[in-house]
């Protein structure tokens, strides 16, 4: 038997808008952007975009802060945050490798590039290596079909990638080989 998530700390759950007890300035910035959206509950997705932009990922604490500010049930906020691919509840790796799996890239061999990266690291699409060095993800068409297959390394698009090219990049980042 197991349970799935950590309980958010109760100390923070009763906070009034703003002034997060942690003193973290980013909460004030989030507060400002929520104010701009007039704390409208229907602005939840915009607010989550801002929150992730500020903090990198969405912790339970942060989701609860947003839920209280927008007067939304916590489960609703959690439901929305986990519905959309863009939001992440886990910290991302230092480096990122995003393989485009659009149709054009796929027919030109993106699948084997992804397989090579997954094979070398022992992690799957959407996961981060245990040492926090690399996150692997896939994208659905970057619009770079002309240079397929495309891979985005740390935000930089590289075209016409082979499995070898990708592995070379991982070496450069000193990504450790994972279990096969």
């Amino acid at each position: 038997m197991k349970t799935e998530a950590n309980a958010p700390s109760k100390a923070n759950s009763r906070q009034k808008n703003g002034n997060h007890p942690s003193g973290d300035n980013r909460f004030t910035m989030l507060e400002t952007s929520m104010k701009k959206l007039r704390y409208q509950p229907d602005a939840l997705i915009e607010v989550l975009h801002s929150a992730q932009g500020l903090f990198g990922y969405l912790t339970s604490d942060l989701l609860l802060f947003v839920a209280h500010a927008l007067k939304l049930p916590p489960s609703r906020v959690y439901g929305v945050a986990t519905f959309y691919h863009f939001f992440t509840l886990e910290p991302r790796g230092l480096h990122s490798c995003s393989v485009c799996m659009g149709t054009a890239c796929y027919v030109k061999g993106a699948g084997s590039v992804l397989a090579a990266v997954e094979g070398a690291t022992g992690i799957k699409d959407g996961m981060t290596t245990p040492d926090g060095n690399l996150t692997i993800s896939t994208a659905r068409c970057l619009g770079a079909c002309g240079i397929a297959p495309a891979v985005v390394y740390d935000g930089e698009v590289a075209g016409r990638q082979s499995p070898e090219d990708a592995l070379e990049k991982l070496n450069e980042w000193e990504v450790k080989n994972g279990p096969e």
Partner: protein
Amino acid sequence: MTVTTLTINGELVSASPGASVLEAARENGVEIPTLCELEGISSAGACRLCLVEISGTPRLQPACVTAATEGMEVQTDSERLNRYRRMILELLFAERNHICPVCVANGHCELQSRAIENGMDHVRFSYQHPDLSVDITHERFGIDQDRCILCTRCVRVCDELEGAHTWDVAGRGTKSRVITDLNQPWGESDTCTSCAKCVEACPTGAIFRKGSSVGEMEHRRDRIRFIADARKKKEWSP
């Protein structure tokens, strides 16, 4: 108020004004199989078991959210509909771990009843056997994700009747799960009022009273209907 007259399975019947096709059928003693629908709360049109054929409409329509209209010709029972319904049931049995003989709701389970009524005697699809959790942190109730069919009755009853909105659906697609608050243990939920409406609403053995043994988990749907009715008709107003 004028009634609506329509044809269901070739019989001319009348339905109360504003009735859905499902309600019209029930008023006239015609059974349409359902799973996600529950009297007293809004309909989701999600389980697709109540799909019916309507003359002049190319697509099958869910009876629970389709309004009965004057002159409508409805077919609720056909070889094709039953074939589709059977496949939907098979998909559900294959999706999670439904082990009837050891389930608290054995014999009181709507999924099981629908399968028996439909004659679904085996599942042709490959069982997914996902590794799922059981949460018994709540003092009185438990949730076993193995048995959940994602009908969202718990979400709707908690939101619409209790007003707590403790439940919601997290994730998406086959990774969808019903959760309490921020996907935290139910026992640590800040919003749950322990009203048990979700327990009574659950069609399977997913949400249960602790201490229920195999086959002991009976659902009191009448309680939900009672509260919903009372609210709607303002029976308790001074």
